């Protein structure tokens, strides 16, 4: 039981325990089984990077298949073995396996664990003024469950029958019947086992994040003074806590259908002319349960990225974030609404059209808080003293993707249009822009921005710029054409289109997309070099390289366990006092009391300063 394991306690006894452990901290406990939130964050980051390379690599291979269907892929045989036939053709079932793994890896392992795991862990204690997470031990478990889950998923890719192949949404009956396709055998079983550990990891992490935010804020750090990063991580954790258990329910019933012969999702199925005994179930039930998680999940992915963006854009515009309260309000509204729109993924399941219009209405409402966020980013940038650090560029890129991908959401949200567009490349274009690329850019912005704190060194800016422009242009070149291909009716998850005459005019466009994808993927190696090289060789970072207000920049260059060598700093103001009229510098850190800034105080703040 996880509950009994929580380490925090207000008893003095505990401090002593910890003391001993501290002195003889060996390599293993310092870098591997560490309970320090900063180390765990880096572990999540490195594991996430590993998965991102793998997930991206897979996409390049299946893009080759789509862009150049006649290509001889014999050169991939050393990696893929029998999945490439002797005539150099990619195995069609393995194509499905690859898109399934790509989706699973990107959505869960990179953009959930890699993003929340890294930045929630790293920033929550540092920006709140806490020594560590509420429970270091739960945090350690959270990482190692994720690691275990990763290992299992990785192993599943080497099965002779292939990994799970029914799409990242694992719809039954395809996923429920081992006879249905080879990936639904052992591959699917391992997928399910891996996800169970993944969910355990997410819940442990989430409980920890929420507890830390509620309990361990430093003196003066009221909710109204929390950076928007923390607000975003906090609400993300709440979303996860409420939605992942429903995925457990969903997966549990699937496990019973697969392994014990129940019929929750199965009914009247014939395989090879023979009827299966299952009666009375419904695959639509699965979709309801899945999307009840699935939709909040997309916000679990994007909210942390939006939080990071708020912080980076405000710092580098040298302006307070526009509409701080509206930002919090829209995070809360998005979080709430995300639980009541799931059926927009199911418009064509034969649902009652009246129900469909209710979900359509609710779905379109989400556009409002999303638009508020986009608007506030733009108004923050407006007339700011923009400093174009790589992190800033990636944040602006995020805003661009969030808008261009969000617009197509409005089309898809209309049931009448979605009936046409569902399961085409239009949907692929939509979510790769609004979720995939936007969240990925948030992740990169976060790495560029907090690298100096994480590793005490600077990344190279020039390489950062090259990386940004190649990736930014590349993403649009890859995903924009997919809208047209989708409107033309290309279904997603098809191995090849060469048999349909109607699509022959799109062959060139498909090749173009593939080339753009390869270049974009290649550009990521610039980042990898920049990242790993500068961990060891980078220029030593100054204490506050971006002249930022938040607490993490008051720690030593490389913070030790406990984060601040002396007392924890107190907080006196919100984190967005940039370019305050009358102030000496263009930033006033949260640790500066009002009575020291008489020249820039408002009347209200002068009142406050008397209480300090």
């Amino acid at each position, binding site marked *: *039981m*996880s*509950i*009994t394991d*929580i380490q*925090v*306690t*207000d008893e*003095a006894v*505990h*401090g002593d325990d*910890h*003391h001993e452990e*501290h*002195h003889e901290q060996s390599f293993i406990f310092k870098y591997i089984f560490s309970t320090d939130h900063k180390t765990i964050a880096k572990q999540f980051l490195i594991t996430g990077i590993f998965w991102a390379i793998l997930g991206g690599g897979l996409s390049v291979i299946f893009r080759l298949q789509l862009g150049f269907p006649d290509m001889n892929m014999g050169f991939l045989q050393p990696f893929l073995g029998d999945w490439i036939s002797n005539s150099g053709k990619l195995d069609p079932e393995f194509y499905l396996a690859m898109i399934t793994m790509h989706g699973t890896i990107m959505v869960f392992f990179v953009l959930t664990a890699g993003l929340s795991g890294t930045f929630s862990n790293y920033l929550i204690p540092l920006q709140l003024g806490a*020594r560590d997470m*509420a*429970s270091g031990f739960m945090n350690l478990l959270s990482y190692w469950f994720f690691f275990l889950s990763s290992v299992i998923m990785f192993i599943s890719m080497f099965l002779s029958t292939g990994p799970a192949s029914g799409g990242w949404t694992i719809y039954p009956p395809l996923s429920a019947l081992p006879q249905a396709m080879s990936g639904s055998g052992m591959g699917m079983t391992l997928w399910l086992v891996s996800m169970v550990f993944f969910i355990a990891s997410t819940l442990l992490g*989430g*409980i*920890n994040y*929420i*507890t830390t935010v*509620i*309990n*361990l*804020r430093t*003196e003066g750090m009221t909710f109204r003074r929390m950076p928007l990063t923390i607000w975003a991580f906090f609400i993300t954790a709440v979303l996860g*806590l*409420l*939605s992942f*258990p*429903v995925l*457990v*329910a*969903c997966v*549990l*019933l699937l496990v*019973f259908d697969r392994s*014990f*012969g*129940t*019929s*929750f999702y199965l*009914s009247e199925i014939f395989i090879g002319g023979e009827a299966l005994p299952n*009666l*009375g*179930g*419904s695959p*639509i*039930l699965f979709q*309801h*349960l899945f999307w*009840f998680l699935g939709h909040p999940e997309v916000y679990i992915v994007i909210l942390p990225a939006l939080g990071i963006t708020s912080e980076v854009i405000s710092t580098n515009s040298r302006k307070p974030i526009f509409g701080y309260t509206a930002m919090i309000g829209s995070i809360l509204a998005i979080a709430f609404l995300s639980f009541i729109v799931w059926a927009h993924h199911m418009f064509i399941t034969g649902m009652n059209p009246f129900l469909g219009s209710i979900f359509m209405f609710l779905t379109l409402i989400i556009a409002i808080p999303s638009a508020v966020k986009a608007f506030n980013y733009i108004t923050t940038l407006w007339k700011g003293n923009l400093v174009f650090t790589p992190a800033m560029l990636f944040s602006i890129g995020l805003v661009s993707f969030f808008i261009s991908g969000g617009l197509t959401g409005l089309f898809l949200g209309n049931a009448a249009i979605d009936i046409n567009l569902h399961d085409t490349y239009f949907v692929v274009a939509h979510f790769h822009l609004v979720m995939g690329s936007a969240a990925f850019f948030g992740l990169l912005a976060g790495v560029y921005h907090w690298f100096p704190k994480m590793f005490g060194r600077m990344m190279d800016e020039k390489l950062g710029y090259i990386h940004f422009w190649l990736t930014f242009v590349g993403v649009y070149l890859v995903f924009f054409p997919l809208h047209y291909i989708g409107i033309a009716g290309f279904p997603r998850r098809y191995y090849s289109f060469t048999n349909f005459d109607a699509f022959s005019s799109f062959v060139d466009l498909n090749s173009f997309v593939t080339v753009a994808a390869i270049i974009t993927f290649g550009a990521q190696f610039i980042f990898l070099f920049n990242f790993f090289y500068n961990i060891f060789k980078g220029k030593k970072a100054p204490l506050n390289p971006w002249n930022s207000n938040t607490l993490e920049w008051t720690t030593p260059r490389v913070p*030790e*366990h*406990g984060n601040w*060598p*002396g*007392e924890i700093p107190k907080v006196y103001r919100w984190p967005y006092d940039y370019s305050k009229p009358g102030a000496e510098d263009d930033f006033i850190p949260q640790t500066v009391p009002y009575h020291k800034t008489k020249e820039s105080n408002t009347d209200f703040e002068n009142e406050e300063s008397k209480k300090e």
Partner: protein
Amino acid sequence: MENTAVIFANRNFKLKSVNAKKFALWLFIVSICMLFAGLTSAYIVKKSDGRWLQFDMPDMFLYSTLVLVLSSIAMHWTYLKAKDNSLKAVKIGITATAAIAVVFFYMQYLSWVKLVAQDVFLVGNPSGSFVYIFSGLHLAHLIGGLVFLLVVFLDTINYKVHSKSMLAIEMCTTYWHFLGGLWIYLYLFLVMNN
């Protein structure tokens, strides 16, 4: 390394408001609630879909429910005794709570036997499968509760449970009552919907 004392001095100061452990327990309970909310919604969705087998819930489920209530009462009695520092009573109380829980386990098993006698199987129409899943999953959580009881029992033996150190037993009581409430919800849900 440096200043561990400061680290924990500072923690103390902040933890006075809400206890982080207790808070985390509540979050854990929230996640279990969502799990069962998901399952029971699935039940309703499936039922409205038709092809639904109607059957009577065995009376045994009613009796087992009463037994579980009894164990919650025992748990609460134990908790009050811990407040009074009567450690011997606490040990008896924990043992009684656990023993009643074991009886509950057995009665759930008997209910399953009754279901089978009614031709309602785990494998078959989902309306029956759901009953097994609900009760089985609840039992799985109850095993967790038993482990928690054991931990508190060992703490009591080591004199770590008394009126000035109530955290563990308080949390255990919370969790136990929650499991009781959860089962009552599930039972009523099944009776009213079947």
